[in-house]
């Protein structure tokens, strides 16, 4: 922890970075994001199992980037990122939202995080994404802290849920998802926390012509949730922030996960894992399956 603070302080003091985006403790089992520009504040930084936010969402914010551009110098941004958050950063780099050289990735050896604030860290309370996580070490980083530790074991309830849903009839599934989507109040917290929802104007805000009805009645909720899931298909890195943010507990990341499974099955592609692989969206292979087409 001290090393992290020292490092952040040094970066700021040397003016290598305009800001360090990191976590700070709020209460025992709760942290929150903090954007540090003053080296003296570096002591507020923490990293532990309660650092839930995927801070890469801040990388695409114009106001944050504006801090890097001073009249005489263009500085970098330092970001604290769990190994899974690095996947999001990779995806952002691939989508031209961030340049690798413009950021300093401070990452950690990670052994999981809790599913939500207010829970004690244990296998039972492990976040869903951590259960299947294969990258306890970040794939890309500039500086790494923390020691390697065993991740608690837990059963993959989300996968079981997906399988359960798939065993249902179409009518039952439609009913289920329609009921879930019906809860949506269109607060767009899922969109706000998603690092890949960086569009300056979301498709749902496009009014002329109206792409997705802004009303949160069944029809509007249904199309919003489908389009959200579709736009993240083959892009979502599975950070699960949407699930955490949704005040209505709609199983958003369950759908994302199902689409990621499709990307893996049909195209052997996992989003955000490699800067060298071309993105699945935006490329094609002549040998892609033609099964769908008559």
């Amino acid at each position, binding site marked *: 922890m001290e090393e992290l603070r020292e490092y952040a302080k040094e970066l700021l003091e040397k003016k290598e970075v305009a800001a360090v985006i990191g976590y700070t403790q709020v209460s025992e089992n709760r942290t929150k994001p903090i954007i540090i520009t003053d080296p003296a504040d570096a002591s507020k930084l923490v990293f532990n199992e309660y650092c839930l936010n995927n801070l890469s969402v801040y990388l695409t914010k*114009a106001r944050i980037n504006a801090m890097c551009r001073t009249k005489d110098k263009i500085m970098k941004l330092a970001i604290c990122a769990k190994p899974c958050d690095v996947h999001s950063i990779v995806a952002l780099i691939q*989508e*031209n939202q961030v340049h690798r050289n413009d950021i300093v990735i401070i990452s950690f050896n990670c052994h999981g995080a809790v599913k939500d604030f207010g829970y004690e860290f244990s296998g039972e309370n492990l976040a869903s994404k951590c259960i299947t996580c294969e990258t306890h070490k970040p794939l890309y980083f500039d500086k790494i802290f923390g020691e390697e530790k065993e991740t608690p074991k837990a059963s993959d309830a989300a996968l079981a849920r997906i399988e359960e849903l798939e065993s249902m009839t179409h009518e039952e599934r439609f009913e289920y998802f329609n009921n879930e989507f019906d809860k949506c109040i269109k607060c767009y917290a899922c969109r706000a926390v998603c690092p890949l929802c960086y*569009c*300056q104007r*979301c*498709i749902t805000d496009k009014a002329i*012509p109206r792409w997705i009805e802004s009303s949160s009645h069944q029809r509007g909720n249904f199309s919003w949730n489908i389009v959200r899931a579709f736009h993240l298909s083959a892009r979502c890195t599975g950070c699960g922030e949407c699930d955490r943010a949704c005040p209505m507990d709609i199983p958003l990341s369950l759908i994302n996960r199902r689409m990621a499974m499709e990307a893996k099955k049909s195209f052997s592609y996992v989003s955000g894992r490699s800067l060298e692989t071309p993105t699945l969206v935006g490329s094609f292979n002549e040998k892609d399956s033609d099964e769908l087409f008559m």
Partner: protein
Amino acid sequence: MKIGVFICHCGENISRTVDCPRVARVCESYPGVEYAIDYKYMCSDPGQNMIRDAIREKGLDAIVVGSCSPHMHERTFRNAAVSAGINPFLVEIANLREHCSWVHDDVEAATQKAIELVRMAIEKVKRDKPLSKINVPVTKRVLVIGGGIAGIQAALDTANAGYEVVLVEKEPSIGGHMSQLSETFPTLDCSQCILTPRMVEVYQHPKIKLLTYSEVVKIEGFIGNFKATIKKKARHINEELCSGCGLCITKCPTKKKAYNSFEEDLAFRPAVYIPFPQAVPNIPVIDESVCMYYKNGKCGMCVKVCDRGAIDFDQKDTMLVADIGAIIVATGFKLYNIDKKAADSKYKGYGEYGYGKYRDVIDGLQFERIASASGPTAGEIKRPSDGKVPKKIVFIQCVGSRDDSKGISYCSKICCMYTAKHAMLYKHKVHDGEAYIFYMDIRAGGKMYEEFVRRAIEEDDVKYIRGRVSRIYEENGKYIVKGEDTIAGMPVEIDADLVVLATAMIPQENSAALARTIGIPYDKYGFFNEAHPKLRPVESTTAGVFLAGACQSPRDIPESVAMASAAACKATILLSSDTLEREPVVAKVNEDLCAGCFYCKKVCPFGAIEVKDVKDMNGIVYKEVAYINQGVCQGCGTCTATCLSKSIELAGFNNEEIFAEIAAL
């Protein structure tokens, strides 16, 4: 907005199943429709006048015509609208004939559908924006890819029209397959004799820049404004200095190091060679893979004998870039390899015929070389294995072609004719020989073609056997050909001295890769696709790229030449104006809202999307956005669907228009 609706009866073609007056009546009741009428022939002069008059008298802003397919008369009605002062893009066509009256029997259902189709068009036209054509400049230079007879013809015709031509040939000489042929059907005139003057003409033409031993590696840009990158492979001979004396060739110690591919591997050549005596340009090439110098750094005999110092062992491949206005692709064909098949090949071999195993089982081009006066046997028919004159030859047609089980469903078109020619040439040279031809059907469509085949049968006593050959095996220096005669209904067995297989014409190696380089579509075999099978046979679907010869499908010489001239003509039409008018159906980015993910750039098939920097007050780039080069954009709209934030719109088919159509259903 005042909309006029015009419903055409098309004589009775539409009105037989669609109640046209009712369609007009119902449509008149829709919001925005000022005027609606039906008429017997809208496309006729009186019909068009009706439209013009209505536009003027009723003050219409846009019109919808319910008629035949827009592919038929969209232009007619747009012109009519323009002459009455309406933008042509404020005209929508509802397809009431091809998509409605002709395909449905029930009057009620068809009328209902017609109303809906017109309603969709009305809702779309309400949202249509006036558009004007886009002008782009034209580079007056044509790139011809391939120096066979089609490429030669295309290059000459274009150059003679006064335009510059860059002719790129991958082999050291132009001439292509035609230069390998002995005689040509149906006249039996010498192939070389008619081709060589053309080759020389190309070489000497002031407007033609000839690049042999070169390949096109990249095509960028768009119609009128292509940029071609051409790789000029190292010849290791300085072309400026070489006089073509050929001394290096005769003195090269590696006499028989490599198969002579021009002779279809029936002869050998040294490391430094010209493919054939009449080669154009008459400049040798040093084959690095067999040259002693490259093996051990010694020898250098050619350097010693060349008094002009033209040998240059250090020469490297060079890249040339040329601005091009139009491209003619004439890359030709190759013959189906009968048995030597790569593991991933889509074609299956013909192991049962023993090609490659028996030296006297050869293909058509090999026979051409044997029959050619300049060939390895100096025109005497001798079989490759022992040089004996074959007394009995079996020709087998349709080897590969028309054979689904081997992966080729099409007819190669020229084999019937050249096999008849081969048999005749043989009979003319070996008077006591017997020639048998196994055939499936004889396809001799063409001027003097059928007569030619009849001559072979009647005058030269060539024995045609209708049926397939099942197996060929060697026995005492003879090749036992087992087949069946389906007319006689009995098995046949012939002990032949030589077997000639008329193998299928297939596209050149890597034709698919070249198609992707140029950006043109190709079929499952690898032949390039024409824009329209009947009406646009020499154009590819990519504007400014034309097709000539056997790269498009199997062609004989006259057809290839005709296509080449047609393609040249199309290219010169394109180059004859200084600027090009393009349909304004192009995409446009809303730069304020673009997030700069560049998925559009990744999916654009034409490279029309560029990165544009947006700077802040201090001149520092703070954002990159997509910018669409309207000259390059072809208007497919793939970017619009890919754009996640919907910041790209395709003019003429924008999303508001499409949503309106959906809502009108």
